């Protein structure tokens, strides 16, 4: 949908594709590596992000065998030698097959080298429950906030997706981008049931979204809501609903988990004194636990209510829709948490 001024509405999948294309045009060291990419008549990865890119860059779309260790190991090796790989995994759950390369190698290569080696590796990771069963559903952002040496971003809309991706490619460090399956807006055979519209106007001009900056998406005075990805969208709709019920929510899209925008978070908490954190990671050891601890540790005197964490259950992701809907924080669960916190 092109408008006269060149601005267009794009889905996250399209915005990422455009971002990758522009960065590959801009810098010939940038390339894509992953499974099922660059196949004529194929899907452009699991969620269409790299669709058709093989036509533009026949040499720089590296389709791999189903071999996650080699995807991330080769990405690292090429980065050490000066390339800028964008490595993708079809579902985040398969990252676990390559944990050594990511956690032992990619994350600490710079450190081990005494700061001599640069590791510009971008890792794209689809997450979120989407009714596929326990091994295609995990949200594992939290696992990686425990790994020093990797930056972590979580775009909730197409504008941020493109801007954060570009920032990641140019960052010169390992950056993981967690992308939600129900936010991509993938089309055709890869369209997802239950998709939430996360499309945005994308300017024609080059831009980045800085890593480490949260964004206040809704101003409010009673409660600060901290969230990302799909849960951010759910939090926003609850906040909207609560406005008419007399609860004024300030909704913040964290956008980056590492580094965390503590200044932005603290500013809001100092105003409201009440915090609700909403995430799709399991509650135990979820990123919400880290964020809550930072707040409690740094500005305890500003809190006038216990910090509330609303998260997925501490279970694998069950398949049955009835149980999966219970596993992922629902609108009701989020609303209940906010209302109770506001009333505290």
């Amino acid at each position, binding site marked *: 949908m092109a408008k006269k001024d060149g601005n267009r509405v794009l889905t996250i999948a399209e915005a990422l594709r455009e971002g990758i294309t522009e960065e590959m045009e801009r810098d010939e060291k940038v390339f894509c590596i992953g*499974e099922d990419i660059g196949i004529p*008549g194929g899907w452009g990865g699991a969620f269409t992000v790299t669709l058709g890119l093989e036509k533009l860059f026949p040499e720089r779309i590296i*389709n791999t*065998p*189903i071999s996650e260790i080699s995807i991330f190991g080769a990405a690292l090796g090429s980065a050490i030698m000066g390339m800028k790989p964008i490595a993708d995994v079809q579902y985040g759950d398969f990252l676990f097959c390559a944990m050594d390369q990511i956690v032992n190698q990619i994350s600490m290569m710079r450190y081990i080298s005494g700061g001599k080696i640069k590791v510009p590796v971008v890792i794209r990771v689809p997450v979120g429950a989407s*009714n596929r*069963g326990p091994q295609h559903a995990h949200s594992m952002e939290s696992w990686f906030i425990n790994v020093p040496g990797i930056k972590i971003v979580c775009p909730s809309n197409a504008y941020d997706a493109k801007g954060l991706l570009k920032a990641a490619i140019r960052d010169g460090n390992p950056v993981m981008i967690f992308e939600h399956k129900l936010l991509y807006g993938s089309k055709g055979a890869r369209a997802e049931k239950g998709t939430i519209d996360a499309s945005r106007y994308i300017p024609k001009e080059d831009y980045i979204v800085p890593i480490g900056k949260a964004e206040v998406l809704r101003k409010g005075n009673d409660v600060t809501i901290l969230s990302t990805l799909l849960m951010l969208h759910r939090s926003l709709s609850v906040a909207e609903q609560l406005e008419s019920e007399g609860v004024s929510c300030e909704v913040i899209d964290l956008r980056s988990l590492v580094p965390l925008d503590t200044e932005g978070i603290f500013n809001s908490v100092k105003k409201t004194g009440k915090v609700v954190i909403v995430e799709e990671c399991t509650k135990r050891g979820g990123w919400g636990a880290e964020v809550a601890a930072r707040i409690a540790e740094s500005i305890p005197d500003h809190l006038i209510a216990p910090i509330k964490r609303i998260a997925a*259950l501490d279970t694998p992701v069950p*398949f049955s829709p009835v149980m999966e809907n219970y596993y992922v924080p629902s609108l009701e669960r989020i609303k209940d948490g906010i209302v109770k916190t506001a009333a505290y």
Partner: protein
Amino acid sequence: MSKILKKIGAQKALEMYKRMLKIRRFEERVRYLFLEGIMPGTIHQYDGQEACAVGVCSALADGDVIASTHRPHGHAIAKGLTCKEIMAELFGKTTGCCKGKGGSMHLGNMDKGMLPSIAIVGGNLPIVTGMGLAFKLRSKKNVAVSFFGDGASNEGAFHEAINLAAIYDIPAVFVCENNLYGASTHVSIVCKLKNIADRACAYGIDGVVADGNDVLAVYETAEKVIKKARNGGGPSILELKTFRRCGHSRRDSKAYMRKEELDYWMARDPIAMFKDILLKAGFCSEEDLERISKEVDAEVEEAVEYAQASPDPRPEDALEDIFA
């Protein structure tokens, strides 16, 4: 009549035919239910590969175990799980073989010798090595079988699992169903070998190849490598050449496939081929086959009704089954 068909005999051959047809009809029904939006989840279907699952499972003995992949409907039926418990699992019902916790990619029932299938490509191979190890440690004359795809053979897990099984002569068989595709990627662009079974030489074990659309060839070859494993001869790789005639998953237009390839394999329908053999052998009449067809349809239909009428889990059931 071929020697192997004679050896199998009419009764067992017809049972094998029935299993194959059951898989086909099950998959056709599931495809309809899924595309109509009646069934939740995602699906990876098995039609066209029926001879692989049925040929191998028919050569197994009581107490033997199998493990499957993201594409497990056929293996589950071949191993003797009921259409009801499978269909109910696909619908996410409490009566499903995994109580609705697993779904289409995690079918299994250890009472019937099938591990809940593993949706991580290559992920079941090391587990199968371990299952075989348990048989060996407890001096049981049983065999563990891993079903996996051409794509899975490129995972590191493939190498580690088979090598470990090889050095201890673990009673396992690694069955690679080479259906020419891993998702949209043709096997020829991710593997330089003509036969994946040729990798066996890297582990010092046997690698054998059979026509995966010919159930008798599958049975005959499987029987040999299973027997070898059972008798302490160690594991083998059995590669079955077949074809994924359905798309990879969900709605797949198969735009990446060549028409000649598709046409060639569609003409080699394992069920039609076996049917001809059975009729020629005089093992059955057209009427017998018609009866089998009706029985199979009734069983699948009954399974759909059963699954739809079965209760949903309670939401809180999600919290159960984490620890023993």
